[in-house]
């Protein structure tokens, strides 16, 4: 479904992605792990077209996204939902307006249906009756969940999660893991998840890929990743300060 071929990206002379290759199949959940600043967010921002590659191609269902017209690209974006690292809620809008934002632009809804969809999306992430609150009135974890409700509200086929469990207590984090699994099983959603939380990664992933020094150095099922002989991956998944990864 998503095919990334030889992706390169630099910022101000600093090479962040250095030939990434990754295939993501329809309906699977792929977790991307790697150090902070290793380019994971940059990688998923390429998948949705927020960033343009310096070199390399990204195909969605066989269509290369760089060459799409504005209208075709709009149709393609409709298939994606994204949860941002810091939630990225719009400060000037209420929680309800934030969640309805994508619905209004991607789906034609009556006011009544829209209100119902907003309520249901918020309920899915464990939030009720907060539609009229402003983002600054929410805790960090609540913001994250509202961001997730906004990403799933219009029923996208592919959801990109940038650290979904960061800043959330372990119980809520596990509830979000369950939600990711539920959406995959019941709605066939394809998920790409960035996380440092290996407990979450093992629970939700069909496959785990590790990004290191701009490349995918290892990919496989959670069991294969646990058993890998790759010292870099071993150091990372066990969270050890000593090992081949020096730069933190």
């Amino acid at each position, binding site marked *: 479904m998503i095919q990334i071929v030889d992706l390169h990206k630099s910022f101000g002379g600093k090479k962040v992605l250095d030939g990434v290759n990754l295939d993501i199949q329809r309906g699977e959940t792929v977790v991307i792990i790697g150090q902070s600043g290793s380019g994971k967010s940059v990688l998923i921002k390429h998948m949705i077209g*927020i960033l343009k590659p310096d070199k390399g191609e990204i195909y969605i269902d066989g269509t290369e996204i760089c060459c799409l017209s504005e209208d075709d690209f709009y149709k393609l974006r409709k298939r*994606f939902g*994204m949860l*941002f690292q*810091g939630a*990225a809620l*719009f400060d000037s809008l209420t929680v309800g307006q934030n969640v309805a934002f994508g619905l209004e632009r991607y789906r034609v809804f009556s006011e009544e249906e829209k209100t119902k969809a907003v309520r249901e999306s918020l309920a899915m992430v464990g939030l009720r009756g907060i539609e009229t609150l402003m983002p600054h009135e929410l805790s960090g974890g609540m913001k994250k969940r509202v961001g997730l409700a906004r990403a799933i509200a219009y029923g996208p086929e592919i959801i990109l999660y940038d650290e979904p469990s960061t800043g959330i207590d372990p119980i809520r984090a596990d509830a979000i893991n369950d939600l990711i699994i539920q959406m995959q099983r019941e709605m066939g959603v394809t998920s790409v998840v960035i996380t440092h939380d290996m407990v979450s990664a093992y629970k939700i992933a069909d496959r785990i890929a590790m990004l290191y020094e701009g490349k995918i150095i290892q990919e496989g099922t959670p069991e294969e990743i646990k058993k890998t002989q790759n010292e870099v991956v071993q150091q990372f998944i066990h969270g050890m300060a000593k090992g081949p990864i020096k730069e933190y």
Partner: protein
Amino acid sequence: MPDKTRTPPYFIFFEQMGEVGILLSRTFKNFFRKPWEGRIFLQQLEEIGVRSLPVVSLTAAFGGLVFGLQTYMGFHRYIGPGSEAYGGPIISLGLTKELIPILVGLMVTGRVGSSMAAEIGTMRITEQVDALFTLGADPNRYLVVPRTVASIIMLPCLTLYGDVIGVAGGYLYNAIMGVNRTLYWRNTMIYLELWDVITGLIKALVFGVVIATIGCWQGLKAEGGAEGVGRATTRTVVIASICILILNFFLSRMLPVSLGQ
């Protein structure tokens, strides 16, 4: 040893001119494309227009008063007592064609241009601009177009309002100093043409485009956290103010003195 890898300043200048040009052309292209962001447009009309009224009132009033004072003094000292009433047209021309558009442009730059850069810059560094994109809203149509259209409409309105206040200020000073009021107004009405006022409004319209474009451009390219937002805000005020002063000269030179010529 000089650093040979450093980008030459002229290259950065042309690169930035290119960025502004691209932003401006995209914005004008999007003026006529649906969907229009009506709610944000109305908010911006209020922000740029209504909320700038106090600062424009004050600057125009004191601008008019000081212009009235200097003109009165000039006529009184160099031509003689009784000639001050001939200052009316000079005050009105100077205010409507030059001083009020500039004052309004600079005031709105400080008040609104900087807030545009800060608001959009904050949205940029907190990934809200990226979120707009993923949720089907083109950041240019959602953020830049409503601000630019509102500036284009509101700057001439504020300038016209400032003209009235400024001219009234100039008149007030002269009236207090005992200048013949009838002669003052008669001279003003004879020499001040509608085109003089329109010239100032055309300038204000151009300044509106400059303020919104530079504010949005700096906001959209902000990076590096709170420090980056601060830099974008400062740059907006400096760049837009300089552009306004330079453009004012060229517009004064290019626009005909009167429609008859």
